[in-house]
């Protein structure tokens, strides 16, 4: 109870400061303070049993919290030193709304409230895409707003179908709380459950950005500033995966796991292959990262689909992907600011021009494609193992996709890092505030690879058990 009052106090205080503050700096510091509070709150929720949340929620909560802390720390430097700074009242307000509703969504224990909070959190991201206020950002914002709204309406319909599948067999409890559904949905009407799976999968896959429903992603990530790209590619996708994993849990409990797994494998493979093909000859380095995000969504879907050790890999990969995407988007933002452009026609020799951000960019790329000893190597390796155990053709397609990604993405990124920089003077200089967050993200992923803390390993194992229950 005291905790709830404290949370409401912090939220209203921060929103109040943001609304009346006159300087961009003060607002950026306020968001950072909220992030610190959120980090403390997450640690407290993870270690105590105040709320009855399971390991899946805990994993996503800590991932989001670390990412948000890093991003808002970068925000302090970004909002004060960036040469294109607009008034940040609306975006800082959206950042607060986002973290509040994302957290509520993670701890929600029934489907409809999860839907409401997810929808609000994703609506709160709209001003972030529109931050630069130009033609391209209008277009990207409209695409994002519209596709996600339609997608999430379909998810709501799917949820209501679950409720109908309970009504039709005369179940005594037709509420949509997770405990009720997981306990009873074996007895629910299977036809309606399958229809609801289709609707909910389409809805949440739109938000994660799996292949046929990805079209908002490349645009949104390429027009928004790197710092918000980091939040969306790392945070929004993670909470959408939580929603999808809840769906997987529900279908497993209903005994329909074969259907779910084949759908996940199919969408995973086509996302990986599509992204790897789209990366060729792509000059825009932010678009490359957007396709990389689609690819990694595919990898996670594949890992969850093949089962076995793949589930462990997928869960670990959600964590790694969030931090690595966070890091690389911030580094790309710095590079873009140093050159004033975002295509490799202009960006050359980033390592020479801005040594620290350039190096971080290259190292983050190596971590993303799964170079040992980063944590992402181990998560990818676990997913490959899982897929080999599942079927040979799928693992071959997967490896082919990974190879194409290495070639396509590597070409653009090496082009951007190597060479002799053109003499474009934008006045941007690397400062510690600008590169500390990506450095910290990379260090965390590296640490996870070198020696995973026992407490984190236990969290991952518990989360795997949650997903494997009723299998």
């Amino acid at each position, binding site marked *: 109870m005291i905790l709830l009052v404290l949370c409401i106090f912090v939220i209203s205080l921060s929103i109040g400061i943001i609304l009346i503050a006159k300087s961009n700096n003060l607002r950026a510091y306020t968001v950072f303070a909220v992030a610190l509070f959120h980090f403390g709150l997450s640690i407290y929720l993870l270690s105590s049993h105040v709320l009855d949340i399971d390991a899946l929620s805990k994993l996503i909560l800590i991932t989001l919290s670390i990412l948000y802390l890093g991003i808002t720390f970068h925000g302090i430097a970004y909002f004060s030193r960036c040469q294109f700074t607009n008034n940040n009242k609306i975006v800082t307000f959206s950042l607060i709304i986002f973290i509040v509703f994302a957290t509520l969504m993670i701890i929600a224990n029934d489907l*409809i*409230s999860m839907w409401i909070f997810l929808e*609000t959190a994703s*609506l709160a991201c709209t001003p972030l895409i529109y931050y630069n206020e130009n033609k391209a950002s209008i277009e990207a914002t*409209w695409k994002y707003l519209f596709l996600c709204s339609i997608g999430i*309406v379909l998810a709501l*319909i799917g949820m*209501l179908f679950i409720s109908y599948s*309970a009504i039709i067999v005369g179940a005594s409890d037709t509420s949509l709380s997770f405990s009720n559904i997981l306990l009873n949905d074996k007895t629910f009407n299977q036809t309606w459950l399958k229809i609801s799976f289709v609707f909910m999968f389409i809805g949440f896959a739109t938000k994660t950005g799996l292949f046929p429903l990805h079209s908002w992603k490349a645009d949104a990530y390429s027009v928004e500033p790197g710092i918000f790209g980091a939040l969306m590619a790392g945070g929004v996708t993670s909470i959408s995966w939580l929603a999808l994993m809840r769906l997987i849990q529900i279908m497993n409990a209903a005994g329909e796991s074969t259907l779910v797994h084949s759908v996940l494998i199919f969408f995973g493979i086509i996302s990986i292959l599509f992204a790897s093909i789209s990366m060729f000859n792509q000059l825009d380095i932010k678009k490359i990262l957007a396709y990389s995000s689609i690819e990694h969504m595919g990898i996670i879907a594949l890992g969850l689909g093949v089962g076995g050790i793949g589930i462990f890999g997928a869960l670990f990969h959600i964590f790694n992907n969030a931090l690595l995407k966070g890091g690389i988007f911030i580094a790309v933002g710095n590079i873009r600011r140093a050159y004033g452009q975002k295509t490799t026609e202009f960006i050359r020799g980033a390592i020479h021009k801005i040594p620290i951000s350039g190096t971080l960019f290259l190292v983050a790329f190596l971590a993303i494609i799964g170079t040992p000893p980063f944590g992402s190597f181990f998560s990818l390796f676990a997913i490959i193992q899982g897929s080999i155990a599942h079927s040979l053709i799928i693992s071959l397609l997967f490896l082919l996709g990974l190879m194409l990604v290495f070639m396509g993405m590597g070409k653009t990124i090496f082009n951007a890092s190597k060479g002799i920089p053109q003499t474009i003077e934008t006045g941007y200089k690397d400062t510690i505030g600008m590169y500390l967050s990506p450095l910290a993200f990379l260090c965390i992923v590296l640490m996870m690879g070198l020696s995973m803390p026992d407490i984190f390993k236990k969290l991952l194992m518990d989360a795997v058990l949650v997903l494997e229950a009723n299998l």
Partner: protein
Amino acid sequence: MNASTINTILLLVVLINMFIMGSNRIITAIKAVALQGIILALLAFFSEEFTTKGTILFIIIVSIKGFIIPLLLIHATKFANINQEMKPLIGYMPTMFIDALSVFLSFFISQKLPLLPSHQETIIVPVFFATLMSGMILIIARQKAITQVIGYLMMENGVYILSSMLTGSVTFLAEIGVLLDVLAGVFIMGIMLNHISTTFEKGDVGKLTSLRE
């Protein structure tokens, strides 16, 4: 309320769908969607027993769907100076024909689905599918950004049929939460409409083509 009255009113909802497909003025379409929302709210209100919560919910739904959202959209069209014409990608007649086909299809689908006996004698399920599909058809068949918002609202009306009449398991707070999310979404869309029409000519989504893969 007996089954035949419910069916008559639901037929009216389908007719409104057809009317929106055929109308060529944007304000008419916005008003028609609002009317559809009010009719559905009335239907849900009178088909259930009288409770205080139900009444409050009814008042909130009617005021949001019937007045706030349409006024917001009409204001947005006037403010952004959007031309009243719909600008169809697919002509009015073909759209109505496709919509009629979708009604036929939704009756066909509903025949195949397992339903409660009380839902078999009414046409709630086919009307839900028909409204959902009409919303999607409108989104595809018209070119302007605002017509996409109207299509989204039609889909939302379809969801309301499902949540209030078919399942009834959605709690009071959840229903209001969903509604507020829709309101927030339409509000943001209204702001974006304004930006689209000041930057691009007359809110035409066909002009949103500079970003390609």
